[in-house]
């Protein structure tokens, strides 16, 4: 199986009384809480952590896009990915991803992803989320009634821009471009970089991923127990569509805290976990359900069947209503799995097999976790857990993984050497 190291880049210094004094961590979070000089250190720590994860041998490092968000400091994950492309050599770069409807024209995504693919020697995984209501409809002002149509059209445009050899005119409902001809073009051109789709639990998304042969990723913050019904729904749908159960069709996000013992894990990870589930997920419910964001088919599925949790989890309001914020409930609910290396091995094997997920995205930094603790968590996982779970799904081929240039053909990137004289 693939073990991927994911960073959300949370602002780590939200005040203790944040939830009492502020309505939301997202959309209208107050600028006075942001100290750019502190953010300088946060960004550099976070990028050190991502580079460290690459050194430790994780299969991929992952970044994502959020706007006006106190737990996600990457409005442009592409900026981070381009830097990582220069400071890592073999690790896949998973940009999870670019919310296509937010780019005008969407060929911008085709270009920037092609740049990252070229710089990295073909290591890009191209994630195409619709994007959350907070990011797209509120922070970016997109019309919720048009968002999905625009997203789907932008997808068609980006894919065509990557694959068509000649300059073409794109005559879309929302985008019209006379001359589409992107330079640069991706290294992964057979036929294009792997496309992964982070989505909620809607049947429409599952069908689309199956039809397009894309990886479906369920990126919930609430762990494997809450994710089980969604992933079961996904696999049931794959079966109906006549697709095999190749676990690499799927990705799943899981928070992890590993230490020498369960008690030590509790000591180390309680504060960052409670910071994340308390302060970082303090989102005003008024930003959860812009009308039209959730399709009528998904609304119908949610209302019709109380047992259809798959559809329920597709709505952000239900996501936000799952609100354990103390460590006991966080751990009992499976949001964060903790323990000694062997205890974590057992849980990871259980998650991978019960959800049938070949791409496990790990959050080993969360909330206000320090760089030292993050490195400790990541190293212990890499040394003591990874070797005991890597064998899973060996019988399946991962057809959705980047195909970089051969190592000997790739550029040698010189080590970074700080100048002795500071620039004026």
């Amino acid at each position, binding site marked *: 199986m693939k073990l991927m190291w994911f960073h959300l880049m949370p602002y780590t210094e939200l005040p203790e009384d944040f939830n009492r004094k502020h309505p939301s961590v997202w959309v209208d979070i107050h600028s006075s809480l942001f100290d750019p000089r502190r953010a300088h250190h946060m960004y550099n720590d976070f990028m050190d952590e991502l580079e460290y994860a690459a050194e430790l041998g994780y299969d991929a490092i992952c970044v994502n896009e959020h706007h006006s968000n106190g737990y996600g400091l990457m409005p442009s994950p592409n900026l981070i990915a381009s830097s990582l492309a220069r400071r890592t050599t073999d690790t896949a770069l998973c940009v999870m991803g670019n919310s296509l409807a937010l780019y005008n024209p969407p060929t911008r995504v085709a270009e920037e992803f092609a740049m990252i693919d070229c710089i990295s020697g073909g290591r890009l995984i191209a994630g195409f989320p619709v994007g959350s209501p907070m990011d797209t409809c509120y922070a970016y*002002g997109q*019309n919720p*009634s048009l968002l999905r149509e625009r997203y789907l059209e932008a997808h068609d445009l980006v894919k065509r821009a990557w694959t068509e050899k000649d300059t073409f005119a794109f005559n879309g409902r*929302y985008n019209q471009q006379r001359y589409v001809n992107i330079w640069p073009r991706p290294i992964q051109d057979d036929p294009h970089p792997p496309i992964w789709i982070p989505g909620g639990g809607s049947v429409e998304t599952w069908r689309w991923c199956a039809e397009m042969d894309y990886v479906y990723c369920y990126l919930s913050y609430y762990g494997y127990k809450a994710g089980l019904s969604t992933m079961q729904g996904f696999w049931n749908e794959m079966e109906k569509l006549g697709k095999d159960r190749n676990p690499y069709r799927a990705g799943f996000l899981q928070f992890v805290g590993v230490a020498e013992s369960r008690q030590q894990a509790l000591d180390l990870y309680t504060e960052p976990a409670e910071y994340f589930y308390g302060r970082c997920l303090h989102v005003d419910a*008024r*930003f959860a359900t812009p009308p*039209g964001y959730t399709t*009528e088919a998904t609304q119908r599925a949610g*209302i019709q069947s109380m047992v259809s949790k798959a559809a329920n989890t597709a709505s952000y309001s239900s996501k936000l209503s799952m609100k354990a914020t103390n460590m006991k409930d966080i751990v009992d609910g499976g949001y964060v799995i903790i323990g000694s290396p062997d205890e974590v091995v057992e849980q990871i094997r259980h998650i991978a097999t019960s959800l049938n997920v070949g791409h496990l995205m790990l959050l080993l930094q969360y909330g206000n976790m320090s760089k030292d603790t993050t490195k400790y968590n990541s190293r212990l996982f890499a040394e003591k857990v990874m070797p005991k779970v890597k064998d899973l799904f060996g019988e399946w081929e991962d057809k959705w993984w980047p195909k970089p240039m051969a190592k000997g053909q790739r550029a040698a990137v010189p080590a970074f050497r700080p100048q002795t004289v500071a620039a004026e």
Partner: protein
Amino acid sequence: MSAHATTTIDVNGHSCRVWTKGTGPRLGFLAGLGGLPRWLPFLDRLAETRTVVAPSLPGYPGATGHAELDTHLDWVLAVRQIVDKAGLAGADLVGASVGGAFAAEMAAIFPGHVGKLVLIAPFGLFDDKEPAADPWAQRKDVLPGLMCAEPANWNELVAAPEGANPVEWPIEMTRASEAAARAFWPLGNTRLEKRLGLITAPTLILWGDRDRVLPPSYAGKFAQGINKGINGVTRVETVPNAGHLAYLDQPEAVAKAVLAHFA
């Protein structure tokens, strides 16, 4: 009192419901946010002396087809078809809230199609200094108090009537909100200001003094915009104890003002 009649018209291949009641000269009503999930006392009052015709706009209760409409021009032309097919060409027209913005467009762009005009707290403008509230970013418990001075009036409008399909009813209510968002997201500003001066119909602007969606001061901006043209007779009347959907809070007072203006 007799019941209203229900007919349908076709707009872009989609069905739109038309409610009709009363006798006398025809009068059109384009409803506000939420549309017309039920018949209203306000419409009964108008129907005492006029033939009230209340067509549903695409996506609002009784009508589909909003997903076909991508641009403001698409919307305006759909409303124009509705006005014509509902037999309202040349009739007096009342538009409220989101329906008010379209009533103003009709009067501005197709002056021959509108007799006299009443606008009840219409959408279409946005003032940076006095920003309108965001009707699409509200908690469920806050929304009724935003729509009406008396929150129960909004709750009554959207409550599922006996026998309603429990699955489809809430979806219909959300669809109405989506239809409004589709045309007016994110600020409610359709640059209507550029066209107000084209309105020649004698116009009355009504505004609830407790409108928490669109500040009552917007009434003056509409009057000023309309009076910039050849129409110098636009009046503003404030409706006491009324919120954004003034016709739900004060049906009698609003109907009376409308009928007086059309008399």
